[in-house]
């Protein structure tokens, strides 16, 4: 359904060119939930913005393809014209954002924001737009939709705003949903409710989902497959089960060791040393994890290009000496 191949994105800033993404590869099958995990700055959101075509002005795609195929269309998202992309956005693929409060127009009634999207993607008569929007509000389990239709974002809680955001994104029944940290800023109970809602809706509509998160535990609970990103590289991608039972990239292993779990004590959590490398540096090492890796071997790991191999048909690793 979605196949991202060798995607590279650069940001041209005053301080230099930031190589935000380099040769990113992953794919999503119909109806599947794929998690993209990694620490802040690893390029998760940039990947999502690139696919949706809402990257900042400074960002430029320098290489790669993003083949998208649904029942109705088959296109390369990176080659399409702006106007035909606009037809796809919201209708074939949609996105929900972190921080639902700022992601909604603060001075427009939330119901009207949903009808705005419906109006540009469907030919429903005006009277039905409102009904359809109310139906969407009900489907994301918002109590008293008729009253909430007229609410402004500042009058709603974060959890309710995120549900509105979900209703907005799903209004035109997209085939692929990109959820960028959908539960950031929500309390734990609301987090679970929102995630379960997303999961149910995805199953109901047989919609593929890309879940972007820094929360490995959350990803393990909801995703069929997981793509691990580090400093703009995909370092490992595998089915959730094999990724956790047998991580092959040193970064993934460290990430799992650093994830809190109920049976682990605080002392058992292993922090990952070092920082993300400076993506503006001219002499960026081919393996961007090399400065933080215990297994670093300059003769082997310094080679260009970085070795990307499939250790099993569905298990890819970008490492010279995988675990």
């Amino acid at each position, binding site marked *: 359904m979605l196949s991202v191949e060798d995607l590279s994105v650069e940001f041209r800033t005053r301080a230099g060119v930031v190589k935000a993404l380099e040769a990113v590869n992953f794919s999503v099958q119909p109806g599947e939930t794929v998690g993209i995990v990694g620490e802040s700055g690893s390029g998760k959101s940039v990947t999502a913005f690139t696919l*949706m075509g809402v990257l900042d*002005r400074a960002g430029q795609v320098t290489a790669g393809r993003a083949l998208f195929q649904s029942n109705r269309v088959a296109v390369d998202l990176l080659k399409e014209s702006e106007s035909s*992309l606009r037809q796809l956005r919201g*209708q074939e693929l949609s996105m929900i954002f972190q921080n639902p409060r700022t992601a909604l127009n603060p*001075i427009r009634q939330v119901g009207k924001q949903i009808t705005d*999207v419906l109006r*540009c993607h469907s030919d429903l008569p005006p009277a039905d737009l409102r009904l359809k929007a109310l139906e969407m509000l009900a489907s994301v389990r918002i109590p008293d939709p008729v009253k909430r239709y007229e609410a402004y974002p500042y009058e709603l809680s974060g959890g309710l705003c995120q549900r509105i955001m979900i209703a907005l994104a799903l209004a035109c029944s997209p085939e692929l949903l990109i959820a960028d940290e959908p539960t950031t800023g929500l309390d734990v109970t609301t987090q679970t409710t929102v995630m379960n809602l997303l999961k149910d809706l995805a199953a109901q509509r047989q919609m593929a989902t890309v879940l972007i998160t820094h929360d490995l535990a959350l990803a393990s609970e909801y995703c069929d497959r997981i793509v691990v990103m580090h400093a703009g590289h995909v370092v490992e991608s595998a089915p959730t089960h094999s990724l956790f039972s047998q991580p092959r990239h040193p970064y993934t292993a460290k990430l799992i060791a650093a994830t809190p779990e109920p049976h682990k004590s605080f002392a058992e959590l292993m922090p990952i040393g070092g920082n993300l490398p400076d993506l503006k540096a001219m002499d960026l090492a081919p393996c961007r994890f090399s400065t933080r890796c215990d297994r670093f071997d300059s003769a082997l790991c310094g080679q260009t290009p970085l070795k990307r191999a499939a250790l099993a048909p569905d298990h890819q690793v970008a490492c010279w000496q995988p675990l």
Partner: protein
Amino acid sequence: MAKPSTSQIVTQRILAALPSVIGVVIVTFLLTRALPGDPAAFFAGPAATAAAIEEVRRNLGLDKSLLEQFFLYVGDLFRGDLGVSLITGQTVVYDLMTRLPASLELTLAGLVLAIALAVPLGVLAATRPNSWIDHGIRLLATAGVSLPTFFTGLFLIYLLYYRLGVVPAPLGRLNILYSAPPQITGFYLVDSLLSGNLGLFGAAAAQLFLPAVTLGLFALAPLTRVTRASMLGMLSSDFIRTARASGLPPRQVLFGYAFRNALLPIVTTLGIVFSFLLGANILVEKVFAWPGIGSYAVEALVASDYAPIQGFILTMALLYVVLNLLIDLLYVVIDPRAGVES
């Protein structure tokens, strides 16, 4: 959370403006009493005897205590009595009634021109930041604000009247061939239309054009800059990204979503620019022989004619209060959050 209705908000804002009005009345009273010179001696004239001056002082009520004087002053205000101007020989109320509309008409016309130009330019600059269009617009706006209004005015007169002859002589609100329309609002443009006299409307508009352009050029810079900055901020905000990611057409994203949100700072600046222009167009009024209250106040000040000054200060202060009230109410219309007390 109970949401106050619009009429509740309006009543509340009007009540909140009352203390300002009371403050204005007190300050105007004290300020004119604090001005140097003895009004009694001034009114009585240079040849008056001490007894005559005392006589005048008693007639003017200046021998009473400050508190008594204040209540007399407030009483006069309630009767709509602001005293008599020595220069014109008319009551101050009459003078202000004829001259204030002239100033307001000029300021509003300048402001409308400025908005009509500044908002599209600001939006254009914001959608193409750091392009040559953006730089060109910045240059135009900076030139407008850095040239003093009397210079722009004189230059425009030289070019458009003296050299090219495309506008009438800068001699007030109307060419001498015309007589003023019957006073309804005091705005010649409106009054001439209301009385159905199109020829008069054209003549009034022709006179108004140059001074309005002069003022408008000056107001262009702050409005353009604020529009640009505010639009840039909105265009990079999260909800615009949501709107674009939902496939909304660019027109709707730009005007329906970004511009409406960008309006708040623009309206605030508009209020500031308006009050500034109203006080600062004295020079323009002088250059174009415009019979407004700015030139009236300056003439009164030069002649130590206190009643008109007092009336002028009071009028301007009340105008500012009304203006701020209007802007407050405009906020409520634009932003649903503005009605909610924090």
